[in-house]
């Protein structure tokens, strides 16, 4: 009887001062039955280390301070270098302009959530990508 739950690592990217969004998403995901590890403000290296130790399936970062392109792409490229990119889902949320969202997708993020994304959208997107990418 395998009882595997989806594990999500949530972090605020870099020194961003905002936390309401990521805390709200943590709650959504818990209510959807996922196990959420919230690590607060972290740099990409720390996020990767934590993701490894916790064997997180999904890594979600929040960025409202404008550092999404620099630190966000950094996170994905480090994940690829460590060889942990393929078995995990990477999502980012926050104050992200549309063209930057495109760039982040190209860099390797599986999904971008901008302000106004609802609970349904977030939970179902994450669940779908998880099933698509990892269950195969």
């Amino acid at each position, binding site marked *: 009887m395998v009882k595997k739950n989806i594990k999500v690592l949530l972090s605020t990217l*870099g*020194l961003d*001062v905002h936390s309401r969004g990521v805390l709200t998403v943590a709650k959504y995901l818990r209510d959807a039955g996922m196990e959420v590890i919230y690590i607060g403000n972290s740099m990409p290296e720390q996020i990767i280390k934590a993701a490894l130790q916790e064997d997180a399936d999904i890594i979600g970062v929040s960025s409202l301070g404008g550092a999404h392109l620099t630190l966000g792409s950094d996170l994905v490229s480090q994940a690829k270098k460590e060889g942990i990119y393929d078995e995990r889902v990477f999502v980012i949320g926050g104050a992200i302009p549309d063209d930057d969202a495109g760039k982040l997708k190209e860099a390797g993020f599986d999904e971008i959530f901008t*302000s*106004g994304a609802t609970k349904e959208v977030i939970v179902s997107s994450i669940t779908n990508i998880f099933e698509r990418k990892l269950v195969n």
Partner: protein
Amino acid sequence: MDKNKETTREIINKNADKNKGKPLFSRVALDAIKKEFDKWKSSNVREYDRNNWAVTPQTMLGSGIPREMIYSPLNISDLDYMSDLGNSGQAPFTRGIHPNMYRGKKFTIRQINGFGGPEDTNERLKFMIKNGATGLSVIFDIPTVQMYDSDDPISRGQVGTSGVAIDSSSDMDILFKDIPLEDITISIVTHYPSNTAILFPMFLAAAERRGIPWEKLRGSVQNDITLEEVVRSGPEYIPPRDCFRIQCDNVEFIRKNVPNWNFITLNGYNLRDYGTSSITEMAVAIANGIQTIETLILRGYEVDWIAKRLAFFWSISNDFFDEVARIRAARRLWYKIMKYKFNAKDPRSMWMRCHVQTSGITLTRQEPLNNIVRAALQALSATLGGAQSLHVDSYDEAYSVPTEESALISLRTQQIIQSETAVTEVVDPLGGSYYVEALTNDIEKRILDEVSEIEKLGGYVQAIERGWIHRKVANYFHSEQAKIEAGDIKIVGHNCYKSSYKTPPIDVFKYPQGAEERQKEKLAKLKESRNSKKVEKALKNLEQACRSDTNIVPYSVECARHGCTEGEIFKVFKKAYGLWKPPVFF
């Protein structure tokens, strides 16, 4: 705080009926009105409306106060014009802190600026002055706000985003180059007591180098513990009581040495926008103000000496009349607190002067141009409430910091209100409205109730330490989020009146490149050219001051003079005070 001491509410209630005795409405008139009202209610009003007489509007960051279908003199039956309202500029200041309000002084139009390196923001500041801004407001980038240097590994990729990067006092020279510091008021948006104690001394040292005496400087800093310890997410915090001590040190130092500078902007805005009600926002700021004054009185100062420059910073959300009424309520309540609790003598001590900003979180990403309308209505309600200065958020709030174009529209919003609507020609135009007066009374009472709750916990700092504020705010925003999802709180274009119309992409601000590199170069040069012995000594003296009872700010100024960096000074605080971990509530 002594738990057996009289609470503020008890003191105010004791003095409640002073000067009352001339009710506006005569008993005869009220009785007649009541008779007619009851008749009307039972015969003209639909049964459904009778059964749903009071309705609680569901709005973002709202007060949760039920509203009746219509208001009449019956709702304010014991209103005494002189003691409950007074004329403008007259106790209890409900109608305004100056007799002529906007006829005498239009509200200061102050738009926030800051991005990239100091040289980049300097250009924008000059642009704003050229286009009619009467005050400047500067905001700092995230590493600077969180007190890390641009060359610290933790600042990587974030230098110059969301504000301007400042690492040392020489950056302040560049930031304000060719800006006439003596002729313009500057709001230096240092949120926290800790970064105020670092950045403001850097500004003072820069002014000193330009030969400008500190008495000539006019402006404000935020300097609020709420921002550092309650609403901030960050990797490191110092304990609340040390943060509060720094807040009071800043107040004391600035009051003494920079007499025309506003040393604290009690918050307000950031707490509310994080997610709390209009009532809690004010109760927290007022409780903070009370504790600050009490502390400075214990240090030996007179209440009038301190209170003359105290200012508040409110967020303005969508419930139009709630916003008007609460600014009036806060004015009256603050007067009562200053008069009855603190026995202030100078009328200027009793003014609830405030800067307001339209709420950022009420602005949507979908159909961003709608935000221009939202912000304009919010600005209008703030004007009708009698705020002293105003920042209007730009319509691209959900995307990035404002472009020149969107910042200009915000500026124009205020200019149109001031120049085209004639709203500012009459003082307190909504005064006397049965609805607004009733709501003002209700809000005042609720704010005072929450202030009492905080006092019962031992005061504001205790409330923070115990996580009471954190929990209250977390509960509020989680339940508000649920209401938004359920559609109880309506947001046009988001959860109602949704359209498949694809908004044409808007131009979003592009951060200038290279700020991080430039700052790193500057820091390397600074560290080479400065006198490292003097730097070490200044930091050591600062650490000693932190560990003793003396005011730490003069030591920070000395650090600024010798080229200490922000990260170096913050390290001293962490070393002297230790690290605190705030509670997190889900």
